[in-house]
């Protein structure tokens, strides 16, 4: 199978869906000729014109709100938010408006829009361009949240998101834009709420999102050399969450670590770990561990920044301890 980058996968998904559905358009900062700073959208304006690939002023709440209004009246906007950190600028339009309009209207109004943005530290971009804020939006009922872990997921999830009748937030890992993965030439969609078992194992389950799937896979590889069999699961969407696949795995392995690049406290890892504790308690031989980013603003200095995110070594170390019964009281 051919291999393409995550960036190309997103671009293909957008182009295919925009050809398929004339009500779609892209709106955001420097999306047209510039193709975004990450060049993910390069070429789209040439095909679809500036009417459907719309450059805006630097007015995030403004264009987010306009996307909501366009979505309510028949369009399917794809909003490009240059950095995930800018979610704080659009919170009212995303969380008070987009997320609630279907419910507040008793189901009469729909808001079918996609918010494309990114996450991920270690790009030496400091505290306002490095955050992974998926927990913030996952907390708000009415929003769906997709977290692709490779080019394959990025394409399939994006196509599903564009066809969904709800506001969907997609976080792409900005460090993975140039990473290649096998992506079929023929069309495919990845349904929401279906986790992917990336690697089967029997001793411990590593549940990892987005950028952390690679980290978990590397940890699993290290552990395999030591005789520890780790299962790696990528939920792919955290809202909706495929609880069943996660629970089935944990019931089999009896141990789990949940890894996500958002801050650990009150985060995605906490939510998933809590559900496992509530629903698989008697199957567990060890507390479910959370591994998120440290609870500090992301520092600039490489010497500091690299310490803040989970690493394969850190995951493997915790997995060894859980399997050896060393962390029974550590959770």
């Amino acid at each position, binding site marked *: 199978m051919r291999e393409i980058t995550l960036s190309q996968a997103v671009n293909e998904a957008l182009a295919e869906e925009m050809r398929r559905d004339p*009500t779609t*358009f892209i709106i955001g900062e420097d999306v047209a000729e510039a193709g975004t700073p990450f060049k993910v959208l390069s070429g789209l304006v040439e095909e679809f014109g500036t*009417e*459907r690939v719309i450059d*805006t*002023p630097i*007015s995030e*709440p*403004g*264009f*987010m*709100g*306009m*996307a*909501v*209004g*366009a*979505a*309510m*009246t*028949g*369009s399917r*906007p794809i909003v490009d938010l240059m950095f995930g950190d800018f979610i704080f600028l659009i919170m*009212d*339009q995303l969380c*008070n*408006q987009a997320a609630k*309009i*279907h*419910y*507040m*209207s*008793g*189901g*009469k*109004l*729909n808001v*079918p829009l996609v918010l494309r943005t990114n996450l991920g530290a270690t790009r030496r971009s400091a505290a306002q361009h490095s955050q992974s804020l998926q927990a913030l939006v996952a907390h708000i*009922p*009415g929003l*769906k949240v997709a977290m692709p872990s490779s080019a394959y997921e990025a394409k399939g999830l994006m196509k599903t998101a564009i066809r969904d*009748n*709800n506001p969907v937030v997609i976080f792409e890992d900005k460090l993975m834009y140039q990473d290649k993965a096998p992506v079929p030439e023929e069309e495919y969609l990845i349904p929401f709420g279906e986790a992917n078992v990336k690697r089967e194992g029997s001793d411990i389950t590593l549940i990892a999102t987005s950028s952390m799937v690679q980290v978990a896979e590397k940890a699993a590889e290290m552990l395999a050399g030591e005789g520890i069999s780790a299962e790696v699961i990528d939920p792919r969407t955290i809202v909706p969450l495929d609880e069943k696949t996660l629970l089935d795995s944990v019931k089999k392995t009896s141990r789990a670590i949940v890894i996500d690049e958002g801050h650990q406290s009150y985060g995605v890892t906490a939510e998933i770990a809590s559900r496992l504790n509530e629903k698989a308690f008697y199957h567990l031989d060890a507390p479910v561990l959370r591994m998120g980013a440290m609870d500090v603003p992301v520092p600039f200095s490489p010497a500091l920044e690299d310490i803040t995110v989970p690493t394969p070594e850190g995951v493997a170390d915790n997995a060894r301890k859980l399997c050896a019964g060393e962390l029974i009281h550590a959770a």
Partner: protein
Amino acid sequence: MAKAKAKTKTNTEDYLRMYRQMVRIRTFEDNANQLYLSAKMPGLTHMYSGEEAVAVGICEALTDDDRITSTHRGHGHCVAKGAEFKEMFCELLGKEEGYCRGKGGSMHIADQSHGNLGANAIVGGSMGIATGSALRAKLNGDDDVTVCFFGDGATAQGLLYEVMNMAALWNLPVIYACENNGYSEYTKTEEIAAGSLTARAEAFGIEAFKVDGQDVLAVNDLTQKLVARCRKGEGPFFLELETYRYHGHHVGDINREYYRSKDEEKDWKQNRDPIVRFRGYLVEQGIATEEEIEAMNAEIEKDATDAVAYAEAAPYPDASEVDMHVYAD
């Protein structure tokens, strides 16, 4: 998209409909206030009384295909855009037959069938939505116009300036209708707004107009012209409508002399009431007799009483509805 011809104000029928709609709003609000005072309504509501000529003057210049976005003080917009009393009172009382199945309440009534995209409980929260609706119209080649209602208080929100900038850059068919009732919640507008409101729109190259919001014909006349120009791609426009809210910020804001005097309220009610003024005009012009007007008022009063009784007796939504409509299929 096919459009009905915009209504004109040049015949008796249109004038009487404008009068009727203003009285319907006032009557709706009087009944809503009673529901609050008699503790029959859950929560609070914000009365539109006094501002009727704004909503009616504007909405009578629109068709059902034209959209509006409304505010927390939104019952007037909802009635003026064509909503029914029954579904409105049901919504205010949290009943299943309400426009939003009781899930929105007073501050979130939306009436999709008449192009009302909904009231909004965030001050200024719908400016992006209105402008986005206009963007959709332009992209699709639809000829509908969107009117964004907001108050003077909302002019302090930054979102307005972001979306006016884009609307002006892209010539979007949107009319920003600022209902300046002189008070930003419990504070005089002059204490929160520097300079001129219309000048702010003009800074973006948007044509802005100041109009007497108590004169329904003046509002309607101007809006008809602006709507027609919007349909020709000459939007956006900005309107500042000078008006007055008779009640407090909300129904519970009763002792309000610390921020505005009873004399001031009395002056607006006695000398500038939009319904009294228009009624006088209709009689003077021989469009209706006092008797015909009284009969119309009585009929509207009865409609409201019946709708309130209906809503009071109507069932609440079943508990199973609580997690319905979080996500669309």
